């Protein structure tokens, strides 16, 4: 008996070792691309161009690429537009989603079931991209406004369900007693239900906020005016359409290519930094949010 225990734990120790090594490798594979980007962005662009293979440290040190990116007026207006989208968009998302989630989490109301069905159905069937485009652009005339990027996505059904489930866990007696004290549903929602659901609200902020920060497709199809372009659309020009030459200023023709590379890496850093910055603060909450979302009713 004792012998068998020892043998088993020997096999398991080997597994533990391999597993830990594998996990360390996963961490490295996940992080290294970002490390490479950071190293490249502060490297001397001509040294970078002649370098092959992985980078273990920056090649030289210069912030030239960053100054060029920040001199690009598009980046700054893009940043500003994205900020507006994130703040205004997320606030409206939270308001609307909370309203829906609160009403649908109330028990004993006959019509919640059909409404829920109507809402959930939209997760599985949609009219498609073109009718949506025509609705927003041609019928509601929201084209070329930032509203076109906010209003069509006011509620994410997935988030609504997460929030509803969370609101549903608040004891009914608490709400009833508030009602007896004369509180109306609006104040019950904003004074009792939301304050008691702060962790999930934080998850909503993260999901909606990151969604706005990262979104680009709507902007691409609805916006013509460059002054309204969010950051991601500017990034697309730089990173995907390879349009960096207008930023390299007075650089000689040979240098333009080299600088172009550095500019791309610096742009990636600048566009990703804010997310990396808020991520650690919200990280502990979102696991909880996803867990709530995974519970089947």
């Amino acid at each position, binding site marked *: 008996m004792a012998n068998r225990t020892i043998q088993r734990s020997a096999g398991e120790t080997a597994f533990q070792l391999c597993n830990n090594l594998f996990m360390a490798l996963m961490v490295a594979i996940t992080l290294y691309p970002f490390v490479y980007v950071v190293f490249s962005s502060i490297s001397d662009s001509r040294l970078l161009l002649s370098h092959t293979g992985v980078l273990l440290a920056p090649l030289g040190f210069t912030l030239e690429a960053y100054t060029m990116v920040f001199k690009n007026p598009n980046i700054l207006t893009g940043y500003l537009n994205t900020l507006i989208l994130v703040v205004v968009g997320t606030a409206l998302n939270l308001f609307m989603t909370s309203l829906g989630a609160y009403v649908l989490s109330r028990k004993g109301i006959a019509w919640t079931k059909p409404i829920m069905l109507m809402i959930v159905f939209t997760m599985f*069937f949609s009219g498609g991209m073109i009718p949506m485009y025509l609705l927003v652009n041609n019928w509601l005339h929201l084209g070329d406004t930032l509203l076109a990027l906010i209003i069509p996505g006011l509620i994410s059904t997935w988030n609504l369900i997460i929030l509803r489930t969370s609101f549903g866990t608040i004891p009914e007696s608490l709400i009833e007693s508030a009602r007896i004290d004369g509180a109306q549903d609006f104040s019950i929602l904003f004074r009792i239900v939301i304050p008691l659901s702060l962790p999930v609200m934080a998850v909503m902020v993260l999901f909606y906020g990151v969604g706005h920060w990262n979104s680009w497709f709507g902007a691409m199809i609805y916006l013509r005016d460059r002054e309204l372009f969010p950051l991601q659309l500017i990034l697309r020009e730089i990173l995907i359409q390879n349009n960096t030459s207008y930023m390299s200023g007075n650089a000689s023709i040979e240098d333009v290519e080299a600088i172009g590379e550095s500019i791309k890496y610096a742009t990636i850093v600048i566009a990703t930094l804010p997310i990396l910055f808020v991520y650690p603060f919200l990280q502990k909450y979102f696991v909880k949010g996803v867990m709530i979302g995974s519970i089947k009713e």
Partner: protein
Amino acid sequence: MKSLALDYRRNKYLYYMIFPVILYYLIFHYVPMYGAIIAFKNYRIADGFLNSPWVGFEHFTSFFQSYYFWRLIKNTLLLNLYMLIFSFPAPIVFALLINEIVVQRFKRVVQTVTYLPHFISMIVVCGMITQFLSRDGFITDILVFLGMERQVLLAHPEYFRTVYIVSDIWQGIGWGSIVYLAAITGINPELYEASRIDGASRWKQTLHITLPGILPIIIILFILKVGHMLDVGFEKIILLYNPNTYVTADMISTFVYRKGLQGSFEFSYATAVGLFQAAVNFLLLIAANRISRKVSENSLW
């Protein structure tokens, strides 16, 4: 009717609160569904949505008969098949492995780090992919070192699916594992204790307790995945493909985008293709749900 009036008097604020929500769903989900009838018309902006002439199934038949039809079906289904084989199980295996980490701090580090790529924008991820896979990108350098010929992977249609799937796993493996880890946490610890007393190894425990324990959630997510078989990866593909790689990279959804919103603005034709896609998706979802309910007693509804 009388009870509704009574209910309204008692809960009138709830009615006020749900009203904007219903309005939102009607306008931004149900109006486009109704608007999809332009698939059966020749939509002209000047005529408007109601006055454009009906053409029946003309757009559908011309799509079915077009040269692109089978290519799009093949590309879409193949990419999805690969995703079901590789991308779908990856987070499950990963969650099981994370669950085996003993040192809690290390476990948290692994989780925190691997969730991260999920929050990076698609543009940045695709920018990184194109950078790293360019002629002198560092991944290309590594592949050359491993014996591959120097080339731009994204310029060759035969590599498109591999690039797509590998980067998809990189982006999603950590995030995807959260749900499974949550499900693992929910398994009754007594089951493990009992099995240990019976002499089950960790491997046997994983096989006979953990896996069956998370099977319901696996099945639910699988059904959802099948239900969206035809429309995944749309943004990423638009950012990564180019006319050289259309042969393998063009999907139904990207075709809808190009036909409808890029260049020619063939609204009705593109809507018809999109509607075909939505209908097939919906049928796949219903089929997957029904099969699952028969086989495993797990289902979405």
